[in-house]
């Protein structure tokens, strides 16, 4: 294939050391109104979502939100109850997984335990009757690109978690599929290895320029791996956007609470109308609003509102507007998290960076909110645009 964006293959190979590893033209993946029911349970609810050719899109959500089911529908392991699934321009609803030409990396890696690494990587090629010399060449190139040459004769049981992960990737890459489907591929690795493999996967995607649909419940993984993130809840799509947009402008309170670490503080508030609209009254005090936000709320004309404040937008400030009591302090080295008790019993998380604060449990503290808070409809949870 041609390099992504018309870049010459040679230059790319020289840059990446990928040798002759070619990849099929990446395909667009599309869910069009896809629903999947298991009995009375709706696992995927009218999902419409497109992954552009060469794009890496992450399906993110809590466990049981239907993200894995959606992925399995794309792979052909589940049949949708309704809707259309496309790979490229082809409707694949009735196409067998083996004829869809997509590769999948499983959470468990799903390596064939009785076959050595070489035979594992070869498996998809043998299934497709690729001639032996071509097979050897492809396995050699793939193994080299993933640093597996020395392990080719080992059985999966003799490999470490990271090595197994790499073999699973090699098995996916070796046949140049039209798209990669990844089902929580890093969640069986320890934290350190996960960070390492995350970077490697991101780099691999850049190198190969393939279409990737990636499922995870880990928002850090989603933020780093995805060019766009699709957030699912109870089978329904909440938002699809670039990581920065999802973080900065969450479409609803659920997304707001799911993205970010520690998660956004969500508070019930009442619009303060005592002297024009200048703030939202919440438990423990009030949160001031800028003119645009105030105008938006005034236009809306309803008394109740849900307010979202990111922990990093709170700081201890005697001139602040929220009075709380520190309940717990977590020191993480590069930052510090304070769990602050509101008078009404709720907990507010504050994230402090820089010098370590002397605040500890029991200390009364006044907090100031930096910038405008996120505003959501208290019933629908949808974002109130400012």
């Amino acid at each position: 294939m041609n390099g992504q964006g018309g870049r010459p293959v040679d230059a790319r190979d020289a840059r990446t050391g990928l040798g002759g590893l070619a990849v099929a033209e990446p395909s667009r993946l599309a869910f069009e109104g896809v629903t999947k029911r298991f009995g009375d349970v709706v696992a995927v609810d009218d999902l419409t979502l497109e992954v552009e050719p060469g794009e890496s899109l992450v399906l993110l959500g809590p466990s049981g939100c239907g993200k894995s089911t959606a992925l399995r529908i794309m792979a052909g392991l589940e049949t949708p109850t309704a809707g259309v699934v496309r790979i490229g321009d082809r409707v694949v609803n009735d196409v067998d997984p083996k004829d869809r030409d997509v590769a999948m990396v499983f959470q468990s890696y799903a390596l064939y335990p009785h076959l050595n690494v070489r035979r594992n990587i070869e498996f998809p090629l043998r299934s497709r009757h690729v001639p032996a010399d071509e097979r050897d060449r492809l396995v050699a190139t793939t193994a080299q690109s993933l640093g597996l040459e020395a392990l080719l004769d080992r059985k999966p049981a003799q490999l470490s978690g990271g090595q197994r992960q790499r073999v699973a990737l090699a098995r996916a890459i070796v046949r140049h599929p039209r798209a990669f489907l990844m089902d929580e591929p890093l969640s069986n690795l320890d934290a350190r290895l996960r960070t390492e493999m995350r970077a490697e996967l991101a780099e691999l995607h850049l190198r190969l320029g393939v279409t990737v649909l990636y499922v995870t419940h880990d928002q850090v993984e989603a933020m780093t791996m995805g060019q766009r993130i699709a957030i699912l809840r109870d089978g329904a799509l909440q938002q699809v956007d670039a990581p920065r947009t999802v973080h900065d402008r969450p479409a609803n309170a659920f997304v707001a609470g799911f993205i970010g670490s520690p998660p956004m503080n969500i508070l019930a508030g009442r619009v303060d109308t005592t002297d024009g609209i200048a703030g939202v009254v919440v438990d423990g005090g009030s949160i001031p609003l800028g003119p645009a936000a105030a105008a938006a709320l005034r236009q809306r004309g309803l008394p109740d509102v849900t307010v979202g404040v990111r922990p990093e937008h709170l700081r201890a400030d005697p001139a602040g507007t929220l009075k709380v009591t520190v309940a717990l302090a977590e020191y993480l080295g590069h930052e510090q998290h304070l769990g602050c008790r509101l008078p009404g019993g709720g907990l507010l998380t504050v994230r402090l960076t820089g010098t370590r604060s002397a605040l500890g449990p029991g200390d009364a503290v006044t907090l100031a909110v930096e910038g405008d808070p996120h505003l959501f409809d208290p019933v629908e949870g949808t974002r109130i645009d400012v």
Partner: protein
Amino acid sequence: MSDAGLAPGAAALGEVAAGAAGDAPNGRRRLGRTGREAAVGYLFVLPAMAIFAVFVFYPLVRTFWLGFFRVAPYPTIPSKFVGLSQYKSVLTSHDFWASLGRTVEFVILTVPIGILLGVGLATLADARIRGIRFFRTLYSSTVATSVAVASVIFFTLLNPTVGLFSYWLGIEGGNGILQSNTWALPAVATVTVWQNIGFTFILMSAALQAIPQDLLEAARIDGAGGRRRFWRVTLPLLSPTVFFAGVVGIIASFQAFGQIDLLTQGGPDNHTMVLIYYLYTSFQNNDFGTASVLATALFFILLAVTLVQFRFIERRVFYG
């Protein structure tokens, strides 16, 4: 270890090392600990060993010993020590080799077909479709059937005058299948396969369910069709169970007695006279000497077969 010949420096080093080892200054103490552990271990093994000794090892040795005696047909006449000559005469006799041949034939007729059917039915019953539990119950039901019951059922089915099989095969009224030199052994083998199918089915079903679904899904996505998935993924992962079923099946078939006794009593014309039934007839005829030689032979044959299986076939088995 002796200190003789050690340089003084080395001896001093040894002392330092011993001192550093603290509460285990010499080898004897460590040995004492392992000795105690071993004693406790043997103590745990003792009850099982006692039972084996009384019911297995003693009879085994006794049987081997009895083979050295020729027993007279009348209990009042004492047995005569004949040394190895009885072993020689029995083991070179036509009857022995004929019965061994029948036994091998019987094993070939029962074990592979039994395993094949077990794997086949288990694979079919592994399908996730409505009402499959009914078939699972049905396929495993023969495990609750005794050899005697199975034999009686088939005895009726094979009966030349009232048997359904005889009717279907259009041979009613004749001598019957169990009286046929050609078909008696296959008929007994069929009963055996039928009776064992429940056990093999349960064994294979359990093994199938232990295969991670991920692997089969990965194979589907990797482009493998149903047949390739079965041969390249399912079967290799079933191999330990197939091997186990093979070993157990061969031993069981070598020892199959009830169905032969109930259906053919070794007939017609010795065509179902397998080793174990030959042994039994010798025993019936008060020929304990011959029976003991045959029992010893059966033991060593099974031992050899099992060793061969472990030595050669197990290499092709994948343990997870």
